[in-house]
């Protein structure tokens, strides 16, 4: 494998710049990358590390507003930097293909899957349409898609997320490229779906001896997929090594910190002495139109504790939050706070109840009014719920900012667009705290964040809980998060609670079969994990 003719991609000293505020800022700062035929390289790092930019550069492509400012990109000896647009166009889709993060967004909603599959081979003159469609069925079968004969004739919205992601990998394989760029292909998927997609991608890439660059921020995922791993931080390479060596002996501190994130465990909370639950749901059913989403939900949350609600998308987790908040009146059953039944609709609840129950949303981006400065974001609930004004309000805003570890002088006059993702989520937390709540619903608050940033948020939430005696209902699909922060775990599937109990009890066998499936689907850092799970499942039948 050391033969140089085997070298497929050779990137030397690549500099890519992006335009921001009228000047060109480097995004990728002189990175080298080489890839042999049939090899899989994992690129990991936080957002803003330049992973996607580097991956796209292997296709000679930069996003609009970016430019290649220096260095060289050679694909099988051919220089791509400065190559004519037509040359690059002939190469894209044919010799280098791309698999995007969100398959639902990357498929054109107006066309059937198979038509989008055959577009590249037909337009690049590799196959006729009939050949391409026959070939598509073959690849759909290799990707273990159900009904490979007919699935291609569906529209993207008629196919589930995991299936779409596999169909997109098949589409990338259409011209049998030398190299495929996988840009976080499973980040948007549930763990149980992710495992199927990972297995299918790995199988097809290996069988066709296709080289790949696999971009992700999830170490456990990259451990399953890559032969080598390269760690990036803010456009610089931190280190690169063979997967097993990297996992066993990371050299750099930054890499070690990435590894350590998953180890955060908070101390368990002792339930408070009253022994009375703060929030109780009794026999709650809820539906959207004729579609029932919650079915007979019973739960009670103890004061000062964290209850984690886990399950796949569509299991009814977020609907549960909407019912508690009074945004969706339940068809049946009741929600009570401190033993007092709450009105099913938020607008009928009194201000005191509204103040005591707060919610933090998944997308901090869209949860903040882009035109409001932080002072206004935090000032509003202070005024509305607590009637604070003038100097008292200002002082409290500063106090809240200090609590979420943001410097008041720097941040108080900023707009949400001037904050990073993690900072925005911190502001959302402060906004919820401004009301001085007792009960806070955290709906996937760390899902959109990188692991390191997410860990910071979890530590913050934990500290606040300790200091203020808050009770959390923590909705997540990430079991690693549950392990870190939960006292009590509720597992939901198809609108029902399939298992609940203290964390240690739920995580210890024997499990409910669905909990078992969820738990066994969470990727582990062991590179043999995926093979192991697949073998176990095959053996189990």
């Amino acid at each position, binding site marked *: 494998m050391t033969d140089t003719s085997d070298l497929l991609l050779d990137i030397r000293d690549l500099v890519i710049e992006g335009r921001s505020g009228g000047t060109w800022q480097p995004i990728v700062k002189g990175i080298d990358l080489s890839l042999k035929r049939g090899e899989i390289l994992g690129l990991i790092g936080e957002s803003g590390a330049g992973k996607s930019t580097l991956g796209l550069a292997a296709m000679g492509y930069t996003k609009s507003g970016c430019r290649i400012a220096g260095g060289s990109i050679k694909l099988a000896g051919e220089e791509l930097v400065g190559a004519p647009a037509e040359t690059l166009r002939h190469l894209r889709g044919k010799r280098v*293909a791309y698999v995007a993060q969100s398959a639902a*967004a990357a498929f*054109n909603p107006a066309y059937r899957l198979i038509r989008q599959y055959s577009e590249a081979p037909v337009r690049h003159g590799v196959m006729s349409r009939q050949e391409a469609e026959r070939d598509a069925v073959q690849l759909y079968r290799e990707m273990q898609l159900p009904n490979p004969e007919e699935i291609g004739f569906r529209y993207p919205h008629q196919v589930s997320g995991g299936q779409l992601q596999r169909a997109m990998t098949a589409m990338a394989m259409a011209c049998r490229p030398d190299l495929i760029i996988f840009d976080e292909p499973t980040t948007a998927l549930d763990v149980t779906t992710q495992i199927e997609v990972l297995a299918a991608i790995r199988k097809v890439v290996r069988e066709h001896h296709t080289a790949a660059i696999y971009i992700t921020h999830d170490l456990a995922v990259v451990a399953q997929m890559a032969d080598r791993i390269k760690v990036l931080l803010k456009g610089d390479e931190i280190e690169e090594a063979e997967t097993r060596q990297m996992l066993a002996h990371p050299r750099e501190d930054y890499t070690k910190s990435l590894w350590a994130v998953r180890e955060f465990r908070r101390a368990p909370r002792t339930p408070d002495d009253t022994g009375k639950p703060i929030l109780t749901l009794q026999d709650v059913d809820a539906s959207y139109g004729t579609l029932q989403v919650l079915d007979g939900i019973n739960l009670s949350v103890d004061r000062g504790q964290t209850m984690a609600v886990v399950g796949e998308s569509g299991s009814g987790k977020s609907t549960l939050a909407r019912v508690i908040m009074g945004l969706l009146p339940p068809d049946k059953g009741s929600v009570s706070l401190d033993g007092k039944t709450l009105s099913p609709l938020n607008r009928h609840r009194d201000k005191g109840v509204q103040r005591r129950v707060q919610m933090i949303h998944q997308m901090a981006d869209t949860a903040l009014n882009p035109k409001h400065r932080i002072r206004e974001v935090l000032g509003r609930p202070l005024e509305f719920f607590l009637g604070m004004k003038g100097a008292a309000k200002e002082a409290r805003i500063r106090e809240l900012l200090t609590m979420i570890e943001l410097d008041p002088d720097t941040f108080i006059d900023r707009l949400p667009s001037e904050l990073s993702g993690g900072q925005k989520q911190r502001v959302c937390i402060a906004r919820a705290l401004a009301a001085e709540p007792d009960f806070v619903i955290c709906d996937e608050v760390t899902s959109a964040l990188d692991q390191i940033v997410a860990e910071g948020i979890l530590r913050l939430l934990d500290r606040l809980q300790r200091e203020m005696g808050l009770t959390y209902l923590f909705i997540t699909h990430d079991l690693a998060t549950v392990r870190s922060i939960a006292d009590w775990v509720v597992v939901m599937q198809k609108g029902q609670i399939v298992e609940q109990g203290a964390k240690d009890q739920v995580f210890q066998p024997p499990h409910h079969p669905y909990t078992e499936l969820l738990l066994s689907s969470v990727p582990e850092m062991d590179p043999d994990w995926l093979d192991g799970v697949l073998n176990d499942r095959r053996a189990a039948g």
Partner: protein
Amino acid sequence: MSPILKITLSRLAMGIVTLLIVSVLIFSAIELLPGDIATETLGQSATEETIAAFRERFNLNGPVHMRYIEWLVNAVQGDFGVSLSNQRPISELIAQRAGNTFFLAAYAALIAVPIAIVLGMLAALYRNSVFDKTISGATLAAISFPEFFVAYILVLLFSVTFGWFPSLASVDAGTGFVERLYRTFLPALTLTLIVVAHMMRMTRAAIINLLALPYVEMAHLKGMKRWRVIAIHALPNAIAPIINVVALNLAYLVVGVVLVEVVFVYPGLGQLLVDAVSNRDVPIVQAACLIFAATYILLNMAADILSIIANPRLLHPR
């Protein structure tokens, strides 16, 4: 029932209800006009008897709602009554005029819509280039001039200076199709200049809106040509807003042509309406307004239904 059929039927029902409301408005608005139609038409010197006979003949007696219902029932059957000024059946008068107006509108639409969409796509493809700015500037200039001004400029250029096209669009029932196209070319061109800008800019904006989406980027990353990305990947998904603007402009081509018809002395509905208003020929005004309203409602309804059908999620439910 398929969702498409359901939506179509409900839109159709809504259209009919709207049209009924509009018909009430038209009828009552004209009832409310000051002055008495009989005395206005017959003049001050008319005797009591002639006025009474006139009222009887044109059904101006009786309670308003009864007259409205009678008028509506007849109108639905295509009978709009007789003209007050020349006693001829209105349906006959209007049929030919409406035919002319629809002909001109269709003629202008067939030129304007393809030009607008292709220019919009080109402007999106070469956005912010000199080409884009020139196209935007030129079409905006055309829409900013009053239409009669555009019409006279075209007459000055093409009839007076070059002598290529007639300045009067005089057609009658005997005019052949090709001859008709030739004679109405200048009014059609005037209308085209007026409606192109709006549709072109919407096409451009709707497409540019989509260009940052992942599936458009995906098409680039599959090595598709830029034109193909715009025409095949972006346009079909931008079609709903474009259809709505096109429908609005088509309606304008039928309803808003009065000035252009007057300038070119074209025997269309607009001319008829203007004449009828100055003669206080109320039944004609009512009929023409009803036709205009129906055109508007029909085109907007068609646009609604088409843009719903253009959504594959509705056309191909799970």
